[in-house]
């Protein structure tokens, strides 16, 4: 049901964008979007076929149950609205405590080593660090 609603919403979104572009007289942009949409749908269909062919129907199950294709190698996670929106959707759990500041920790591990390691880890993400 959820998936069906999402598809309906998606089509409605595309239609209203198309309407808005045509209303604005931006026919060129309309054509650019139309061609991008066609490419996207083609890619989507191709991925589904590959997923099913790769593991005899098993991927189909995973694909459907995990929505955006979580865990499927061909469906790289884009940092788009759908992905971003997942954050904070879950209400915070009951927390019996408040917060307090504590004195800075004395690391046994060499702080410079830890710092370098964290820098390296952060730079390994596709979400890049500032400047």
């Amino acid at each position, binding site marked *: 049901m959820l998936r069906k609603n999402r598809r309906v919403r998606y089509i409605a979104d595309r*239609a209203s964008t198309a309407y808005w572009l045509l209303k604005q007289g931006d026919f060129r942009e309309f054509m650019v979007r139309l061609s991008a949409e066609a490419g996207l749908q083609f890619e989507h269909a191709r991925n589904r076929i590959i997923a099913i062919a790769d593991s005899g129907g098993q991927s189909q199950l995973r694909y459907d149950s995990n929505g955006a294709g979580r865990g499927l190698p061909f469906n790289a996670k884009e940092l788009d*609205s*759908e992905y*971003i929106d997942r954050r904070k959707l879950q209400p915070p759990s009951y927390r019996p405590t408040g917060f307090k500041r504590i004195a800075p920790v004395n690391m046994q591990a060499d702080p410079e080593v830890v710092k370098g390691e964290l820098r390296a880890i952060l730079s390994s993400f596709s979400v890049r660090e500032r400047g």
Partner: protein
Amino acid sequence: MPSMIKITAITVTFNGLPYLEGFFSSLMATDQQGIDLEVILVDNGSTDGTVEWVTENCPQVRVIENDENNYARALNLGIASSTSDYVVITNNDATVHPDWLQGFLTVFERDDNIGAVQSKIFFADGEKINSVGVQEVEHFYFADIGFDEEDSSRFSKPKKREYVTGGSVMFRRACLEDVGPWDEEFIMFMEDVDYSARCSEHGWKLWYSPTSILYHQYHGSTSQALCEYFCTRNRFLFVAKHFPLELVDSIPTSHFFKKGELDHLYRSLLHAVQKMTTCQDADTVKQVLHSLRDRLPEYLGDVATYMFFSQLEVLLGLRKIRVGIYDHAGHFAGGGQRYVAEMADHIQDRYDVGYIFNNDVELSEYKEWFDLNLDKCSMKIIKIPFFEERNRYTADEGMVLGERTNPFDIISKETLNYDIFINANMLGKVNPLSAVSIFICHFPDQEKTRFFQVDKYDHLVINGDYTGEWVKRRWEMEPSTKLYPPVNMYNPLSNPDDKEKIILSVSRFEISGSKKQVEMIDTFAEMVRQYPEETRDWKLMLIGGSTPGNTYMEEVEAAVARAQCNIEYKANAAVSEIKDYYRRASIFWHACGLDEERPERVEHFGMTTVESMQNCCVPIVIDGGGQREIVEHGESGFRFSTLEELMAFSLTVMGDRNHCRRLAERAYRRSGLFNRKVFRENLDRLLAEAELQLLGHDVLPHPAAGEAA
């Protein structure tokens, strides 16, 4: 005669008064032959009269008051204040058997390397076992041995244990001194498992004694929810301390993960890794960080994992806190920009502050516009393709209609680079991904439309009650902080006794006429016509900003010509000239919002009113919007609803010099609520809260310390 064995019994309580009488009675009835017993009660901030009751009824009990509601800390306080050979730690929602103390000693006699001995703990009814030791039952989850079982011969002999419970356990002083203080980061639960592991690591043996018996009210003094939370939270601390290489594997088996309590999981892991750096070498830390890099995205997702490592840098004190300020209209010199520039100016030394703009702008311009030097702030310009493609210079979120993706995702992505993200100018479609986020609302102009993200922010800051009221109505949200704009137009030369017969208005000449200059001109003309004596020598001065080609200026000019009385107006006057008029004017008029039905057309706050008050003018302002909060009617000025009222209140002030001076003095005092000093104090409070979210550790509420749950 053999020497007496000194024993200190330490019990910790928090609102445990109902249990204390039974507990202390049974304790005093124990067999104390050869024992010199000292009893210490550590109170964690009880509000049920525990301390008073014990002081009055149990003179032999020494009371120590803990300034935190922290069980492990309470134990440390008790132990540190004792000097005995043995220390017994026990729950007090319990009663003890007469052989309770002797039962411990008989086991200690077996071996000098026995560091701790645990009792046989029954449930209060004495039928079933509560605990005869502690063991690991699933992946780093621990449970009492014998729990809920009938007593049997299996539990009738002393036995060695890997872990013991802190519910009833006696320690040899030498063991406590060797192992050191209890780890206060545990607060409560699992602190005994951690201490057991530490005892073993120091070569001490742990035993169980079947003849030391205690009857326990299970969860008589703590709730199940509290127990569940702390057991899982502290499990990560325990693993980080003793089995760091298993930390990553302990994530999917944690109850937080299984129950989907990912926010608890995130924070507990963060503090566990912090803990690990304090007790493990660099190689181990590196290894664990790498495993987390590989596996955490699977549990928390890429974005949260990135945030995790970024937040860890701050938590470990490896860099300054980064604050990102996004202003899509930062290229204008408006009140909203000034508001946030004042923020940036105040925090730029403390934090690493970065501005995010969509258009080309130099921070040096802020020096010209607002006299604020933002040299220590960095800045970044991020163009939004959606608006670039449409040749829109300023991002207008109203244009985003049926887009599949949110054009402001590019800004959301940027927010990941900051620990605290401040959305400065009400662009409600930016989803904050920083650890802490603040949305500043000067007025909720937009309805809740597609991609509305304001409800994802941690703090919703409003500039006054009027905005707050409309935030509730339009967005059905509760603002978290009220932060009045900073107004600093003080002039030491302004004096209520040295004023001229000038009525001043300072407002932009809006093309729409929303500031109502024409209406004020007509009103003044009418006053002069009707009351020539009372208005003799008075002048109306209108000052405000304007843009080239502003057609409203023609209307103002026509109204002034029509009025044929002492009225002047000036567009884009220099700041020095405005200051001079504030100093000289006796009365200040503000009419924005008159006869308006749309709430956004009413002045949301009214900084110029405060500026006039700081210069001892008497404000006579519209009874609406933010003006209601600034001017107390009849006390520090007047508020009018009609132009007739504006006229009447003005004549009252103009005709009574003393009254005018008294009102001006009160207006001056009132204006202090909205000055830069107050702004900075309130901002500091807001940021202290943000820092707590970012860097804070768990704390249980303690009435005396006033900490919130």
